[in-house]
Every structure is written in structure tokens, then in C-alpha cells.
């Protein structure tokens, strides 16, 4: 009978287990009993070095520095009463602080516990020299993240900190342990698997006086892989300085490739604070701040885009052959749509398309929107990559929102002509991220190249080559007209962004988005130089009033870039 065979097999397996137990517990029992009683196995960890991050010119933006930590082996440390007071004197801390640290981080008797971090070199050497008088005390060399540019690019880089419970449950299988340092946000989190260093260590058997008797095992620590990014840290810093703490975001990307040259979100934070216990107050301040400095506004912030959207409406109207560039509308300062009056911000008189873009005339675009209808507006917004993530290689990118008749119907609400008019000037529900706005300008500047922005260009020695971007089918004449308009926004005498740009050759579109009860958001998105576009950009200021503030900000940045020969 087959079940008989299975029984025999099961019986054999039981006998194997019993035999093995007999061997361990009876034959080798006394040896293991001795080993367990003496607690004579000890672990000495050797930390690995986390991967560095370099910018486009191989400038180090995240580095590692050596720091000294003083650890104790609980078992031995407790057996020698005098050690505690001696150590406290050397470290010049109260004994209570040391005992508290031991209690808090205790894992097991022979796993060292860090009682003092970032000890200066002199103290570390002093303790090392006196190690025979301090049984159970170890000086550990621990690499620590070092940020040469302090808080620059903090959102893009992310920070490292002690692993949290949410992450440990997910990463346990990959060998992460409770006190490991892992990446939070930005590249540190996105590329955790590459940057991560795997700690090694030695397991030794010691005698009752703590002297090494036998090395039971050794594992070399593995260093993390270095990551090179497309960022230009100099440009990044120029922009961050120009923001001067105001809330907002800015993106500069290469038009041809999608390489991100600068990605700013303001206010920023100092990433090094998260591993520094002395800065706990600063960290809790960041976590609690109503300005949410940890959020990367450039790709996680959603804002009404305002008049920047007019560029898309102009393209849609030309592509759909609803108008020719010469089509004129008269702007008396307002337009009656249905029963409601829709205002323009000025009285522009008769305008053609290029003029309407230059002056950001609302009435002209109300007319275009009504001519096109909401479906075409939605279609072109989606075509230019709005309402979906750009696919940048960073975490937490949001998709944005573009209204449509269909989604309105799903909410059982009607679409009115007034909604179409509002849609045409980017008000209402049109929500985009600053990154999407910059990419939109990149598409226009490159003649319809659907660029995917990216940040990581190299991991260790592996170059990352992004796939060739697809081309949108757009009539070159359309783009020529719209670019002409964008150029005039900045350079024509009456342009909304003309504040004297000299020979910077910038083209762009301003936008001011009304915000209920607060100051409006300001936008300035475009590209430069307009005759041979190299960079697409977007500057955004949150609740700081009209777009002119943003234009001044961009002006400041580009002038500084020019001064430093970075354009």
C-alpha cells in the first residue's frame, strides 16, 4: 500500500530528527552548555559605506565622513562596576545618560550598543588607548552622511534615518535590521537598493577575560553603489538662494534629453539633521511646520496652473483649424458667457493670437475655448502630458487633474459653457505640478518631443540611457506661431513678463492662479534661448501674489547663471 511507504518515509524523517537531537543534546550537550553559559560569543560589526551621490560635473553632493561612536557590550560592561563611571568621565556625560541608552537599545548581551555618537577624534583615541581599563567598551568607526552643500537639493536627495516599523516589515526579508539606517524620500529612498551598504562583522569566541580565542566567522562589509545625477548643483543653489525661503518650486530641464538640471522645492531642510540626535528639535520643527518643508512641491504639489495653460489652448485652436493666427477678437475687458460675465484682467481691444498670448488676454481665450469645446481642451491637455505623471525617476510624483465633461458627468453634474471658458484660461480644476509645466514647455520648445524627465544618469559604472522620446504630431507652423507669442510675452514692449531681459533670449508664459481667501499663485514657465532652445523651465511661487514675482525670480536666476557662465 502506498500509504505504508509514506508512513515509513515519515518515520525515517522522525528518526533523523531524533538522531540529530541526540547528537546535539546528549553527545555534544556539555560543550554547548558551556558555550551558552559563558556567553562567549561576541559580534563586532563593521559598517559599510553608503553610496555617494554626484552631480552632472561629478561634483560630490552627498558624501560620507568617518565618525566615531562609543559602544558597550552590555554583559561585560555590567559585570565591571567601575567601567561606567570611568567611561562617563571620559565622555563627560552623566552616568544616567549611558545607562538609559543601554536600556533603550538593548538587543542582546553581546551585541554592542552605541552610547555616544559623533565623539571627537581625541576622546575616541583616548578611550581606545585605555581599552584594557574599560572592559566591554568598544570604539566603533561609523561612516556618516555628509552634505557639502548643506541643505541644497534636499528634496531630490532625500535623507537617511533609522528604519521605521513600516519599512522594517517590508524590508526584513532583504536583511534589514531594526537599527539600520535607510533612505527616506528622494533618491535615498528610490535608490535604496543601490545606495545601501551591507554591514559586515566578525563573530568571535572570547574567554572569560574578553580576549579573543577564536574567530568564528567574518563577513566583509559591502559598500553601496555611487549614483550620478543630471543635476547641476551650482544652478540648483543659485535658484535656492533666489527663493530666499519663499514657498514654491522650480524646475530646469534639458529640452533635448529630459535631463533635470535643477529641481527646487522651497522651503528646504537639512538632511543631516535626521541622524543627529542633537538636532531633534529642528527635525520635529520640520515635521510639524505648516509649510510642509518635506514635501517636494516640484512633483508632489498640485496647483491651478492659470494662464500658462493658454499655450495649450492656442496650439489646440490652430491644430484643430478653428482659427488662423490672424484671427482677431475684440477685448472690451469682459465677455458674457451664458448669463455670467467673464472678466479680462485689462481692456486689450482688438487682438490676434500672438498679441493675445503676449498680453495674456482672457477674452481671446474665452472665445477660443468656446470654439474648441471642452473635449478638445481635455484632449490637448492630455496630449501634453497633463493629468498623468511624467514618469520621472523619483518617488511620490502625483498625476494632476484635468477636467473633462465625462468625469463631470460621472459625478452627476452638468458642464456649462462657463466651465469651458474657465478651462480655456487654466482656472477652475486644472491642476498641474511644476514639473509638468516645465515639461509642457519642453515639448513646445523641442518641436513636439514628448520628453520624459529623469535625474539618475549613472549607477556605479552603469550608464542609464533613457529611451528615445516619441514625437507628437504637431504642425511646425502652429508651434512657430505659439513660440512667437511666448517670445513676445518676455520681449515685446507690452509683454506680461517684460522686465528688461537684455540678451537672455527667454520665451515663456506667465500665469496667476486665483486661490480662495489667500494670495494667488504665480507661475512663469518657458524655455531659453528661444532661437535654439536648450533649457525648459518653470518657476512657481505659492501664495505670493501675481506672476510678476515669479518673473523677477526667474530673471534673477538667469542673470546669475549667465554671470557664472552656466547658460
Amino acid at each position, binding site marked *: 500500500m502506498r500509504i505504508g511507504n509514506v508512513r515509513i518515509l515519515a518515520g525515517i524523517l522522525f528518526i533523523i530528527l531524533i538522531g540529530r537531537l541526540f547528537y546535539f543534546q546528549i553527545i555534544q550537550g556539555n560543550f554547548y552548555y558551556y558555550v551558552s*553559559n559563558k556567553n562567549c560569543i561576541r559580534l563586532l560589526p563593521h559598517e559599510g559605506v553608503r553610496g555617494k551621490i554626484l552631480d552632472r560635473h561629478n561634483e560630490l553632493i552627498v558624501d560620507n565622513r568617518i565618525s566615531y561612536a562609543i559602544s558597550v557590550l552590555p554583559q561585560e560592561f555590567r559585570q565591571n562596576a567601575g567601567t561606567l563611571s570611568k567611561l562617563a568621565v571620559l565622555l563627560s556625560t552623566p552616568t544616567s545618560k549611558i545607562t538609559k541608552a543601554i536600556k533603550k537599545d538593548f538587543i542582546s548581551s553581546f551585541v554592542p550598543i552605541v552610547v555616544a555618537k559623533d565623539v571627537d577624534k581625541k576622546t575616541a583615541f583616548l578611550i581606545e588607548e585605555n581599552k584594557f581599563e574599560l572592559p566591554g567598551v568598544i570604539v566603533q568607526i561609523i561612516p556618516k552622511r555628509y552634505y557639502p552643500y548643506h541643505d541644497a537639493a534636499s528634496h531630490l536627495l532625500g535623507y537617511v534615518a533609522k528604519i521605521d516599523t513600516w519599512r522594517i516589515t517590508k524590508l526584513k526579508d532583504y536583511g534589514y535590521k531594526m537599527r539600520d539606517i535607510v533612505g527616506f524620500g528622494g533618491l535615498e529612498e528610490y535608490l535604496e537598493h543601490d545606495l545601501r551598504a551591507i554591514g559586515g562583522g566578525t563573530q568571535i569566541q572570547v574567554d572569560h577575560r574578553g580576549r579573543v580565542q577564536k574567530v568564528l566567522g567574518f563577513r566583509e562589509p559591502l559598500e553601496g553603489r555611487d549614483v550620478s545625477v543630471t543635476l547641476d548643483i551650482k544652478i540648483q543653489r543659485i535658484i535656492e538662494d533666489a527663493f530666499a525661503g519663499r514657498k514654491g518650486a522650480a524646475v530646469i530641464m534639458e529640452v533635448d534629453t529630459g535631463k533635470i538640471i535643477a529641481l527646487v522645492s522651497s522651503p528646504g531642510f537639512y538632511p543631516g539633521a535626521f541622524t543627529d540626535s542633537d538636532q531633534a528639535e529642528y527635525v520635529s520643527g520640520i515635521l510639524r511646520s505648516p509649510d510642509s518643508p518635506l514635501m517636494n512641491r516640484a512633483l508632489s504639489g498640485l496647483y491651478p496652473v492659470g494662464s500658462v495653460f493658454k499655450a495649450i489652448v492656442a496650439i489646440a485652436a490652430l491644430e484643430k483649424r478653428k482659427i488662423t493666427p490672424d484671427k482677431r477678437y475684440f477685448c472690451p475687458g469682459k465677455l458674457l458667457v451664458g448669463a455670467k460675465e467673464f472678466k479680462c484682467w485689462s481692456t486689450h481691444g482688438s487682438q490676434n493670437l500672438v498679441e493675445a498670448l503676449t498680453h495674456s488676454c482672457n477674452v481671446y481665450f474665452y472665445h477660443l475655448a468656446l470654439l474648441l469645446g471642452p473635449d478638445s481642451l481635455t484632449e490637448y491637455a492630455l496630449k501634453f502630458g497633463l493629468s498623468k505623471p511624467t514618469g520621472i525617476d523619483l518617488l511620490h510624483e502625483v498625476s494632476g487633474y484635468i477636467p473633462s465633461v465625462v468625469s463631470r458627468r460621472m459625478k452627476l453634474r452638468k458642464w456649462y459653457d462657463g466651465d469651458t471658458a474657465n478651462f480655456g484660461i487654466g482656472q477652475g480644476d486644472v491642476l498641474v505640478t511644476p514639473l509638468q509645466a516645465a515639461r509642457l514647455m519642453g515639448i513646445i520648445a523641442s518641436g513636439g518631443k514628448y520628453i520624459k524627465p529623469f535625474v539618475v544618469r549613472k549607477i556605479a559604472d552603469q550608464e542609464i540611457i533613457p529611451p528615445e522620446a516619441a514625437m507628437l504630431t504637431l504642425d511646425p507652423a502652429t508651434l512657430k506661431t505659439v513660440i512667437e507669442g511666448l517670445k513676445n510675452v518676455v520681449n515685446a514692449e507690452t509683454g506680461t513678463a517684460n522686465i528688461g531681459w537684455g540678451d537672455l533670449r527667454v520665451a515663456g508664459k506667465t500665469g496667476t492662479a486665483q486661490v480662495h481667501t489667500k494670495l494667488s499663485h504665480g507661475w512663469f514657465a518657458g524655455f531659453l534661448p528661444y532661437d535654439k532652445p536648450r533649457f525648459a523651465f518653470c518657476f512657481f511661487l505659492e501664495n505670493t501674489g501675481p506672476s510678476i514675482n515669479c518673473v523677477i525670480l526667474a530673471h534673477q536666476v538667469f542673470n546669475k547663471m549667465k554671470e557664472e557662465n552656466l547658460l
Partner: protein
Amino acid sequence: MNIRAHAIAIAVFVIVSLSLLMLYSEIYPKHAFDTSSVFFRQLVWAVLGWIVFIIFSRIPFRGLLAVIYPFYVVIIVLLSFVLVAGAARLGAQRWIKIWWFNFQPSEFAKIAIILVLSHYYSRKAVNQIRLNIGSLSFLRGIVYPFLIILVPFGLIVKQPDLGTALLLMFIFLGMAYYSGVKMRYILLILVVGSALSPFLWHCLRDYQKDRILVFLNPNSDPLGAGYTIIQSKIAIGSGRIFGKGWLSGTQGQLNFLPESHTDFIFGIFSEETGFLGSLFLLGLYGVLIFESFRIAQKANDNFGKLFAFGIGLMLAIQVYINISMTLGISPVVGVPLPLMSYGGSNMLVNFLCLGIVQNINARG
């Protein structure tokens, strides 16, 4: 009272009590006696488990036939859900959080697959006393049933939960063997499996490769899995004949032995109760396993026969893999010790399975 009729219930009760004693011993030095501790949680699961056991030992087991496939589909959906939810971020996730309970679908997949296979192999000969020995072709005996379990199996491999996947494979082959599928077909599968192993090796995640390499040479990783094996050997060995006594183990209590409340619970059990205690525990598992086989043999109903056999097999494999892993004779693959290891899903599933086996015993 007929001891034989209650053998399974008695063994289950004693094993679960031992488990609780061990978990108490685990929290004892930490003074973590609050209700969120592993001890209290396990206590709740043990009580719920008993209720499940009693319910399933009373309701006619053939009634299960109606719900096998819906249950199977639900398990597949949950397994996919875990995969999708886990894939959104780095790292794997094996459970779904429902209140404070981390529900682990892969545990329930074991019973779903045993139910489905029992149904499949018993279907052909429902009205006959004997199974259709020898009449199953390669297609019907191996390929079709394999296709049936392929989806949950694949999802579990993808998680990646190597231990459970291997366990399911063994259960499948065992049940095919018991159903009378020709020996040469089964051998063929085993040969193909070993031939594919270099390829499968390539598919493993780094940490899984590490575990197997460490098994071959524990000293190669003194901080990770190798460390656990060394510590577990010390724990077990130091228990000698009589053990160090309850609450007196040092390896487990001083936290030398990681995972001492889940996969490595046998380590602290053996340390505190010694060789005699370990023999006693193995004896209890022996009762569960050989009773299941006996019930399978004497059952008249083919579905019941196969199911009882499948459960016996599942327990035998789990007990063997888990204990041999703590003894350093098989790789650390993360298989819990049935009814001993801490974990609600595993506990419930084992109670559920044994409840049905008890039922089969009572109804023949």
C-alpha cells in the same frame, strides 16, 4: 472514553499549551505582559482556534465540497492583492492588515490547495470504494491538477515565499502519489525539477540565495542567517537531557536567538525542556501525523481519505523542515512549526485542518 477518538484533540491541546508556555517564557524577561504581547495574542488565537476546531469537527465535511472553489478563488484574489499592494514599494509583503491581525493569504492557500486536490483526485471514483489506482494518465494525474494549482503556486513563488512554495510542491506530489498516479510520472517530475534547479537558482532573490549558501556553510554569514543557525544549535545543545527548565533558558531569553517566537521556537523549547521534552513534542506531532494517515486509510469517502492524507503530509513536512532547519540540517526557508510558532493565520489554518480531519474520523 475512547482515547483514539480524541487523540488528535488531545495532542492539539497539549501542543498549543506548550506553545503558550514558550511564548510566556519569551516575554517573561522583558516584562512585556500587556495585551499586545505575543503571548496574549497567541492566547486569543488559541481560543479562536479551538472554536474553529470544534465547529469544523461537527459540521459534515462533505458540505465543504460546495465551497471549495469559491474559497479557492477568494484565496487567489487575496494572494494577488498582497502581491500588488506589496509591489507598489520596495520589498515584499505577505500579509494584509485587518485591524490588528496580519492576515497571511499564503497560509490559507495551503488548505485551499489540499481541498482542491482532494476534490480533483477523488472526483473520478466517488462511488467506488477504492481509488482509481493506476488509471490516471500523465495528463490527468499530473498535468491537469498542476495547472489547477499553478496560479496560487505562482503567486506564492512571486511573493517570494520559497518555503511555502516548496511545501505546496511536496504536498502536490505526495497527494498524486497517494491517489495512485504512476510512480514513474512522479519520478519524472522530480527529475525535471532537479534539472531545472540551476535555472531556478537564477530566479531566486539575493537573500534567498544567501540563505541556501549559508546553510551549506553557516560561518559564511555570522551576522545573518548563519548566526541564527549557530545560536539555535547552541540553544538546543545546551538543553542536554532534562533541559534548563521553564523560564530558565538563556539563549532565548537573553535574546541570543532571533525569531525565537516564530520560526525558531523549537530552539527555546528544546533548550528549556531538553532531549526528553523534545522527544515528547515530536511524539505529539507523531500522534497528529500518524493519526491523520490512519484516518485516511480507514475512511470510506475518497475526498475525506485524500484530505486527511494531505493534512498529515502537510504537518509532517512542516514539522520536519522547521525542526531540521533549527538543527542546521536544512536551509532556513521560513516554515513555521505547526501550532507552536507564533502567528494567527498559521494557527487558525492548522486548527481548521485538524478539525476537518477529526470530523472525517468521526464520520468515516
